[in-house]
Structures are given as structure tokens and as C-alpha cells.
């Protein structure tokens, strides 16, 4: 505990005592972080609720997040791993800034704060890229009709309202099944569905995977599409997404968005902090405790991401 923080040694009953041996500002930051912990816990718990409830039509994360900038093909987990690395790295630079703050070394604080801001901005950029891909969509899916189970040839299939075209054990892009697929077919209206079915029927190696992960062989799939298929869909919004249950998209936008907003706020706070460090505000004050307080917030943002990473991408 820095002596400089206790400005005047008043008696304990006049607020001169620090029972936690921590300053007012730091304590309040901790209390704010406790409430924020509970907020994020509630979000992730409700995500877990919906995931358990709709486990039959919940998407597999590896089918959803497969892209990496400038690389073709499927690279599940790689991009979020990079994002995690960036955020952990920015946490490290933040601790270093706090550490040099204790030693009152202004220039080193500036250096590590700048690097933290860069790390935070890189994370925000990555998240924007990730959102862009999520919204724009990748392989697309077929929206099917009905809410009850559906029988073909005496086998029971749970209806799922969404089905993916499947080829060689992988999701196959619906763009390949529309005529003149060179144009941007991100709008599902662009694809004539009857035409889609006839192209599907003509390619014998195509199967259909329902969102409960049952795979229908080609002949069954054609029958299923004719009877149950409504239209194709691509990308994601709050009403529908090509990956699986609607709530999956909603939670994705809400939880990663709320976390991204925290990161954004953190970057803004860090910039204000940096300006104040440069202007010698804290040197005059005699301590760099503000770096420590903002640092607590920044580490918390990293901490939340560690959990978001696990529950959205790994589990």
C-alpha cells in the first residue's frame, strides 16, 4: 500500500483507516467487477440453458467458426485462438505498465500502455472480422417446415427446421447449387428453390444433414427437400442463421457484443489514461494508481474472454 494514498492520517472513525489496505478507488473497481462478473455469469448461464434445452438443433462450433484471414479452407479454432493470444498479450503489457507505474517510470508506462492500446484495438478489429463472417455467412442452409417429428420410410427423424447440404462428410456450400453461382447469392431470395432441388437431385453424391446431425442419404434427402424444404438461407441475423438454432446467433451477437463493448470501453479508458500519463497528471499526484485501477478493468475483460472462448468455441 502506497503511503501517498493516505493523504492525511485521520483517526479510524473519521475514515483514516484502511481495513482492506486498499484505496477507495481500487475497492470500488473491485466491487464493480464483482457485479460485472455476476452479469456475465448470468449471460453464459442462460446460454447454457438454451444450449441444453435445444441441444438437438444447436450447431457444432467447429462448423461455424472456420475461417482465417488470407487462408482458404477450414481452420476451426485457429482464429479465436489468435484473438485469445492477442488479448492475453495485451494483459501482459498492461501488467508491465502497472509495474513500471509503481516504479514511477513514466516513459516505460507510456510504452507499455501504447502497446496495450494496440493489442486492444487488434482484438476489436479481429472481432469485427469475425462478426462480418458470421453475418455474411459461409455455406448456407435449407430452411425446412414443421415443428413435429417427421417420418420417411418408417424411420423417425426429428424435425429441425434447418438442414445442411452434406458432401463427403462436410457441409457443402449451397452456392454450388444455384444457377449462375458467380453472383453474390448472400440473399436467400436470389436462389430459386425448385431449381435448387432439381440441381440437388441431379448430383448423386449430395446428402442432407438435419440439424440434429442425422444424415439423410441422397434419395431420402431429395424426398425430404421436396416435402419439407421451404427456401435456402445464408448468413445470420437476429431472426435466423444458417448455423443452427436462432438463439445461437442471438447469444453470439449479445454476449460477444457485450464483451466487445467492454473491450471498446477499456480502449477508450486506456487512451484517456495515456493522455494523463503524458501530461504528468499522475507524476504530480505522486502515484500511478489510476494505471492499476484501469489495469484491473482490463484484466477483467481478458478474464471474461477466457470464459467466452471456452463456452462459445471449445465446449
Amino acid at each position, binding site marked *: 500500500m502506497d503511503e501517498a494514498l493516505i493523504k492525511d492520517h485521520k483517526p479510524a472513525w473519521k475514515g483514516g483507516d484502511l481495513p482492506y489496505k486498499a484505496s477507495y478507488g481500487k475497492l470500488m473497481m473491485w466491487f464493480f467487477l464483482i457485479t460485472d*462478473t455476476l452479469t456475465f455469469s448470468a449471460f453464459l448461464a442462460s446460454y447454457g440453458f438454451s444450449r441444453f434445452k435445444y441441444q438437438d438443433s444447436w450447431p457444432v462450433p467447429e462448423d461455424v467458426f472456420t475461417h482465417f484471414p488470407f487462408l482458404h479452407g477450414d481452420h476451426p479454432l485457429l482464429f479465436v485462438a489468435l484473438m485469445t493470444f492477442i488479448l492475453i498479450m495485451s494483459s501482459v503489457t*498492461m*501488467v508491465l505498465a502497472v509495474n513500471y507505474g509503481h516504479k514511477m517510470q513514466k516513459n516505460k508506462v507510456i510504452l507499455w500502455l501504447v502497446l496495450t492500446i494496440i493489442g486492444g484495438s487488434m482484438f476489436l478489429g479481429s472481432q469485427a472480422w469475425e462478426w462480418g463472417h458470421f453475418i455474411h455467412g459461409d455455406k448456407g442452409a435449407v430452411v425446412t417446415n414443421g415443428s413435429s417429428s417427421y417420418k420417411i420410410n418408417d424411420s423417425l427423424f426429428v424435425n429441425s427446421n434447418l438442414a445442411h447440404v452434406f458432401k463427403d462428410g462436410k457441409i457443402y456450400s449451397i452456392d454450388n447449387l444455384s444457377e449462375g453461382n458467380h453472383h453474390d447469392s448472400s440473399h436467400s431470395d436470389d436462389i430459386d428453390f425448385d431449381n435448387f432441388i432439381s440441381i440437388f437431385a441431379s448430383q448423386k453424391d449430395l446428402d442432407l444433414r438435419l440439424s440434429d446431425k442425422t444424415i439423410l442419404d441422397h434419395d431420402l434427402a431429395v424426398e425430404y427437400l421436396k416435402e419439407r424444404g421451404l427456401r435456402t438461407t445464408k448468413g445470420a441475423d437476429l431472426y435466423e442463421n444458417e448455423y443452427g438454432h436462432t438463439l445461437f446467433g442471438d447469444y453470439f451477437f449479445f454476449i460477444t457484443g457485450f464483451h466487445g463493448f467492454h473491450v471498446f470501453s477499456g480502449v477508450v479508458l486506456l487512451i484517456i489514461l495515456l493522455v494523463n500519463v503524458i501530461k504528468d497528471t499522475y507524476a504530480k499526484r505522486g502515484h500511478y494508481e489510476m494505471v492499476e485501477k484501469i489495469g484491473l478493468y482490463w484484466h477483467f475483460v481478458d*478474464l471474461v474472454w477466457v470464459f467466452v472462448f*471456452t463456452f462459445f468455441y471449445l465446449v
Partner: protein
Amino acid sequence: MANETKGNWWIWKVFWILLFITAFEVALGMIKPPFLVDTIFLGTKLLNHVFIILTIIKAAYIILEFMHLGHEKKSLKWTVLLPAMVLVPYLLFIILSEGVHSYLMI
């Protein structure tokens, strides 16, 4: 403060631990060892339990070292940790078991 004399090596130590755990998680997520995927424990794959345990270890390093809580006064440490340690498992228990229940009710 204790760290004023400790230098920076401990920061990098924590960094390498966090990096190693994350890399390990990603590797597990890509390889998906059949033994961990096929064993179901408490309603989910053993692999998911491994992920959750590793996540909690990472969280502990961030809170106790980076946020310096491990070096604060004991009373402050428990003031911060106890509400989360009591309320979050409670919330998870109620909500997740309700989730499983409503799945069975569909």
C-alpha cells in the same frame, strides 16, 4: 509493494503458463481424443470437463497474479471471491438443470 523488488520475470512466467494452457486447449479441440469425447460424465463429454478445469486454472492465474488479488489482504481477497464462488455455481446448478429438464419436456 512486493513486486517492486521482484522485477518482471513473474509476469512472463504467468504469460507462458496462460499461453501454454490456451495452446493445449486449442490442440485438444482440434485433435479431439476419442477417449475424452466418448466418455460422458455429468451430462457432458469428459473433454468439456477438461476445458472447464483448464479455463478455471487460467482464470485463477489472471485474478490472483495479473489482478494481484493473491497478494492483497486476506479479507479483501475473500470479499471479492466469495460472492462469485457461491452465487455462480448456484446459478449454474439451477439454470442448467432446468435446461436439461425443459429439454426432456419438449
